[in-house]
Each structure stands twice: as C-alpha cells, then as structure tokens.
C-alpha cells in the first residue's frame, strides 16, 4: 500500500507550513503521530504536552488541546492530567535532552510507576534549540558545540540507551519501542501501539524516534540521511523492546 502523502486529519492546517528547519525530522514524527491519532479516532480525547527545546514548536501543530511546558517537565504535567482525568489520552512529546537529561527523573519514575501515559522522545543526538550542544545521545567522537573535539566517552560516557532503560524498569503490559523517521510507516505503527497500550490501560508506553537535525549537524540532505540511517542505527537499534501480551 502506498504511504499517504496528505496531511493527517488532526493536523491544524492554519499553522502549516510548520516552524521546524528544512530537513528536520520533527515534522515526520508529528506526521506519524497525527496518522496514529486519526486511525484511532481519538482527536477529541488527546491532551498533548510538548517540552521546551525544538519540541516547543509543536504547541499549535494539531487540532488537539496542547500545553507547552518547561524543559524536561512534560512527563509530570501529562502525568498530573492523566491521574486527574483517566479518560483523557495524555501524550508527552520531548527531545533527548528533556527526556534523558533534565527530565530523566520524571521519565524513570513515570515508567517505574507504570503511568498510563504515552511519552514520545525525539532523538537527534544534539540539543537543537539551544544551538547544538552535546546531548545524552551524542555519538562517541561526534563533534558538538560543547564537545568541539568530539565526544570523549572516557569523560562523558556513552550515549543513553533510552528505550533499553525504560524497558528494563517497566513491567509486563508496558510498550517500549525505538523507531526512526527513516521508516515512517513503522514509526506510525509503533506510536499507534503505544497509544493503544495507554487506552487499554495496561502500562506505560514509550517510543523513541531517531530523527534528523541538519541545522546542528551541518549536513546536506544526503549526509543527513546517511547519518540517520548508517551512523545512528549503529548505536540505536530500531525495533520493539517490549510489547504487552495479546489478550486471549
């Protein structure tokens, strides 16, 4: 089947073209999310939270109630919403800095408590909005503004393996996966399963999306794609790490 190239129904047309840089992967992640929302017909029940960082540009992206939060704090805001109104579908959208650095305690504890929310984390190996600093996900040897000679793993450790960590601390019933904007149909299916997990109420759901940041990678289209497809996937294995057992 051909992949639909039209805009998802739940996208807000008035705010398109979007605000991300040309070649940015955010728009693709949000397309996958939009399609998943459409297919599940949950536009009226979704409450979308976006983090600070380039994620903040998504605050008026959908015809969905949305709250822009603080850097790293989208997970607790959505948790608070979901706890008070379990009939809503809470989505926390964040970058790698928001989820794995400044907000890591929230991600870890939301996962450990099995919060019935869906966290979508965009991994593009850098801090985008602040100008290309080293992120928890920066690859070994990779040059950034705060690792100008390349990430020195003896000093700064290895890239955070987010879904692996979340899979390790969640219980049966949770959904954990890593997708990529390079495989949009698969990414959409992962996000859909994550949302279905929340709707079923079996556990926490988490999708990391490998994504592109040509602005801070200083790459042209070809190099952007090859960094995503060839370099990032060496460290970050795409696939499902935890899937709730099928009901009998």
């Amino acid at each position: 089947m051909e992949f639909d190239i039209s805009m998802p129904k739940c996208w807000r047309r008035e705010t398109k073209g979007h605000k991300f840089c040309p070649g940015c992967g955010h728009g693709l992640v949000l397309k996958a999310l939009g399609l998943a929302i459409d297919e599940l017909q949950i536009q009226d029940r979704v409450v979308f939270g976006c983090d600070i960082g380039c994620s903040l540009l998504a605050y008026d992206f959908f015809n969905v109630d949305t709250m822009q939060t603080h850097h790293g704090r989208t997970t607790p805001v959505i948790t608070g919403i979901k706890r008070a109104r379990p009939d809503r579908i809470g989505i926390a959208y964040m970058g790698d800095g928001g989820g794995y650095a400044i907000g890591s305690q929230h991600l870890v504890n939301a996962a450990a408590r099995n919060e019935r929310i869906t966290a979508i984390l965009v991994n593009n190996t850098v801090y985008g909005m602040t100008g290309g600093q080293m992120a928890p996900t920066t690859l070994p040897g990779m040059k950034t503004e705060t690792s100008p000679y390349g990430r020195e793993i003896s000093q700064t450790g290895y890239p955070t393996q987010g879904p692996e960590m979340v899979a390790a601390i969640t219980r049966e019933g949770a959904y954990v996966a890593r997708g990529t904007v390079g495989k949009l149909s698969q990414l959409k299916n992962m996000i859909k399963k994550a949302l279905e997990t929340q709707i079923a109420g079996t556990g926490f759901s988490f999708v990391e999306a490998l994504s592109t940041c040509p602005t801070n990678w200083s790459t042209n289209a070809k190099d952007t794609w090859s960094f995503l497809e060839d370099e990032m996937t060496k460290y970050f294995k795409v696939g499902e790490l935890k899937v709730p057992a099928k009901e009998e």
Partner: protein
Amino acid sequence: MAEKPIQGEKRVFMTGNEVVAWGALAAQADIMYGYPITPQNEIMHYWSRLAPKHGKKFLQTEDEISAGFTTIGGTIIGARAFTGTSGPGNTLMQEPMSMAEMYRVPAVFIIQQRGGPSTATVIYSQQEVTLTTFGGNGEGYRIVYSTATHQELFDYTIKAFNTAWKHRFPTFVLADGYQAKMREPLTIYDPEAKGIEMVPTVPTLGKEGVPGVDRPPVHMTNTRNTEEELYEVVKGLQAAYEEMWPEVEEHEAVECEDAEIIIVCHGVVTRSARVAVSQLREAGIKAGYFRPITLRPFPVEPMKQSIKGAKQLLMVESAQGQLARLVKDSIYGSTIPIEPMFRPGIGISSEEIVEKVQSLIK
C-alpha cells in the same frame, strides 16, 4: 451524592497538618500530589488515608518539581488540585510555581516553613516569605495567605481554593512547622453549612468536542519571540493582578487607632503579639499590632492608615527581615522609625516582645 466528609460543624483537637487535610477535603479537593519533606508530611499522611474513603486521589511523586507540575496538570484539566511542601522542597517547587503564574493556573500550595538556608532545621521559621511571595523568574503573581491559628489554617485552606479558582492565580497557604505539628482545638465545618459556596472548577484543556471541528483547539504557550510580545503578556498579568488586589488583600489591625508603638508581624508570631499587646495595654502602654494576612497582595493602604498616628514600629519575625522588606516597600515615604526584632529560625514569645517594647518606650 457521596456523604459529606463533615456534617454541619464539629469541634476537634488536631495537628495543623491534619487540619489542612480536612480543610482540603471540606473544600472538595479532588487530588493531592506530594513529595515527603518535614514538617509537611502529615498533610499527605492524613490525605492519603482520607482520600479513598471519599472518592479522592493522591499521587506521591518523585520530587517536588514533579509534585508542582503534576498539580498544574491536574488543575489545568479541571480538578481541584493541591500540593504541600517546605524548605528545600519549596525551592524546587518554584519552577512549577513560575509556570502557574504565566498560565494563571489556580493550583493551591500549602507551605509549612522550616529553618533555612539549606537543609537547616525541620522545626520552624518564617524564612520562606521571600521565596513564597516572589520566588521564581517573574513578578510574583501569586496570592499568599499567612495563617496564625489552626482555625485559620482550616478557614484559609478552603478559602485558598476559592480565591485561586475565582481569580486564577496560584494560591498559597503559608504556615510553619509549629502550626504543622502543634495540636489545638478548632471547629471544622462543611463550607456549605456556613454559606460558603465552592467556586466551580473548569478545565482549560480537554473540554468536550473535537478541537478544530466543534470548537477551536486550546494551544497553551509560555514562550514569546520578542521582548514586546512578552511585555504585553506581563502587562496583562500585572493588570489582572492589580484588579483583584483590593478584593483579595486581608489584614488584622488591633488597637492601632491610638497606639504609640505598633508591632508588625505575621503568621504564628501574631499569637505572641496578641498576648503582648494586651499585657502592655494593662500596663498602660499604648501598643497595638498590625498583621498582613495576605503577604501577596500586601495590604498596602490599610497598613498606611493603621500606622498613621503611631510613633514607631517594631518589626517582629522569625526571619532576618523578610517581612520587613515587604513592609518597607509598602509604606515608602513614611518617616516612622522601625525597630527590628529579627529572630531567624526561632520562635518568639510574648514575654520577649513585651520586654522589647518596654525597653523602647522608656
């Protein structure tokens, strides 16, 4: 409808933290989010015991940052939500409080002050005045009630929810470790039986209907691209704050009309001032006390009026002049002498105040 947690009114003997839990229950709070820190813990202890019996909820979060942000989440989706904290937890909670100011989230925060700076003591102080009134990267768009007795703790916990939801500013009940842990008699009541109507809550996000089809979507943003855009936002917040100011400000002025010396205090220290003033009056000394109940917005005009005829002020607080800064700012232009009696982190007795006043009078 579920049975009311309190029928009519009832005389009880409780600790302040227990009072807060009952106050929140009487105010029909839906959910508390919290993280352990002394001396606030028993609010959570009592709430988490009471909550399931009355169809209410509780979430213990991973830290105070999360407690603050989950409280914002609950409030924004239309629940009557609250949290409580103290000391270093209050410091951490300034980040969510700042967001609550920007979005005008009617969340309720209970602060039980402990000693500072740093971990300090878990006992008592009035050192979180500056933090609670003006903490955060903004202009202090909050409402802060400072209570003196357990009865007030109950009354103002209920009131805090109504003020918050009516005026849509984050609202604080500022008490302290003494009030938290001490046991005293008070009357708890069903607000309705006293003619107090609870201001209804409304969700900001998650209203009925398909956004973009049945209604416009709600898109909350707290970022601004230009200085001018932000300026307009802050001006709007300022205007709204000034508008509610006269309606919300509260104070207590006792024996101030003919007083030569006026004791200025707030919170639990008021109790000592009250006793001191009556003893001083008995001894023929014209003393009175003025006490702001709202530290934000500060009762500026009532304070100016109350001190008009006095010869001097005695500033009494369990902090190094945190209340005094609010006072000086408010009475700017007055030349009345101010005598400090600052006791950071320790309690102040009526005897100490009487002694101090006597030394100033002769």
